[in-house]
């Protein structure tokens, strides 16, 4: 019996009651465990991301939700001593297969971080960046993509007259929407958002949440959030994690009205965390 099996001796299995999307699942995580050196951060996670739906990851600090999010596009690869077990199958392909082009994977799984991170260049150049990296020279294509991405991220009307000004002059909320536009410009299937509103005021937060709602359907979205009401507002399914384990993964409305696991009940009602 290996360590992993020992860890499961006294652990309840994940309770699943997630909503299934009309287009089925896009990403399947199977028996997924992850170690940072000797310390295990994720334990045997089984979870489907439904295509076109918004999935929220919630749980107390250190529960592994950001680690889980970063596993989807292998952002954890850069960490020394990282080891994984199990598999993540994205659109039929194992993402840990040696033949996988990690840059290509990350383009298909765009990421938005906690703190807006626009590059020190113009608004248009920020959005066009993924195309430039790909060597696209076609000015018309670039201009069209910039416009489409900025419209999709509900920023176009606010910036269309100053596309060549520095992105650093935008407000925090605008910068975050710009980062979403940059992720969209790469034409991804999945948007991974790691606490995208934690540095924003309530109005900017509401705009991002509205944007998430508009983008769902076209994109499969995963959002890590510390704000349970935000998870309740924006997501179709919610995954509750605790100590590296997926405790419960279910339809959001049920997770916040009739959660099934005792841990989930305690967490969503503010009894710990």
């Amino acid at each position, binding site marked *: 019996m290996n360590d992993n099996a020992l860890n499961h001796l006294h652990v309840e299995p994940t309770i699943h009651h997630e909503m299934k999307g009309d287009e089925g699942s896009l990403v399947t995580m199977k028996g997924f465990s992850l170690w940072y050196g000797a310390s295990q951060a994720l334990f045997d996670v089984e979870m489907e991301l439904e295509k076109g739906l918004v999935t929220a990851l919630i749980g107390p600090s250190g529960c592994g939700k950001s680690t889980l999010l970063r596993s989807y596009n292998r952002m954890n690869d850069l960490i020394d001593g990282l080891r994984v077990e199990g598999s993540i199958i994205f659109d039929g392909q194992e993402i840990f297969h040696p033949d996988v082009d990690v840059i290509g994977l990350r383009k298909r799984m765009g990421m938005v971080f906690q703190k807006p991170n626009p590059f020190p260049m113009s608004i248009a150049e920020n959005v066009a960046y993924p195309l430039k990296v790909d060597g696209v020279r076609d000015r018309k294509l670039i201009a069209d993509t910039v416009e489409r991405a900025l419209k999709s991220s509900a920023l176009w009307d606010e910036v269309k007259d100053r596309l060549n000004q520095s992105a650093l002059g935008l407000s925090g909320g605008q910068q975050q929407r710009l980062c979403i536009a940059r992720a969209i410009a790469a034409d991804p299937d999945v948007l991974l958002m790691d606490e995208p509103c934690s540095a924003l005021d309530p109005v900017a937060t509401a705009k991002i949440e509205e944007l998430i709602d508009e983008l769902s359907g076209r994109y499969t979205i995963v959002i890590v959030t510390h704000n*349970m009401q935000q998870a*309740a507002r924006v997501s179709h399914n919610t995954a509750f994690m605790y100590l590296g384990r997926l405790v419960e993964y279910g339809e959001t409305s049920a997770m*916040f*009205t*009739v959660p099934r696991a005792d841990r989930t009940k305690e967490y*969503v*009602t*503010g009894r710990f965390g």
Partner: protein
Amino acid sequence: MRPHTSKNFEAELSHLKDTVLRMGGMVEAAIGKAMRALEWRDAKLARTVIEEDHAVNKYEVDIDDMCVAIMALRQPAAEDLRLLITGLKISTDLERIGDLAANMSERVLEIMNDPHSSSLNELLRMSQIAQGMLHDSLDAYVARDSEKAEAVCARDETVDELNRQIFRALLTEMKDAPSGITGYLSLMNISKQMERIADHSTNIAEMVIYLVKGKDIRHTSFGK
């Protein structure tokens, strides 16, 4: 379940439960007084029930205010949310029971000088069952005891049957003594109101089941 991290939130929920219980206790007492007034022809007691009904109404408003404030300020989830929804619903049922007790007392005042009907004992028995249902439904609310709540729902049929029996008996009495028809109509009214009280207690019990299990068992025949 362990207490909330926020002690104020914990205290607010516990204050809500206490208030619902106090309102329930008041309403339960009102039914008892109305029936005692009927049994002992006690006009003063009947008037007390009518006068005290405004205090019951005040409780309803207070409980609803409390629930709305907690919802707005705490954004409760899961069982906490259900506790508040249940509080709102129960306060409405209790207020209706209070009205019914006051209404029964008005009927009692109408028959102060009439002789006792042979149905009095059945009426008292029915009242005991209905009061017991109310009492147990509130106990179940506090203890979050869905089995007790289910037992309350099961007793409703007995009360319905007693109401039908009393109705038939009073009809016979009416035929035998047409001069007392007004008094018999008042008694029929009291019997009907007691049957309604059992219905409201059943509503409360059904809400307790929702509180505990998160499952709405009301009007389940709709799905059939």
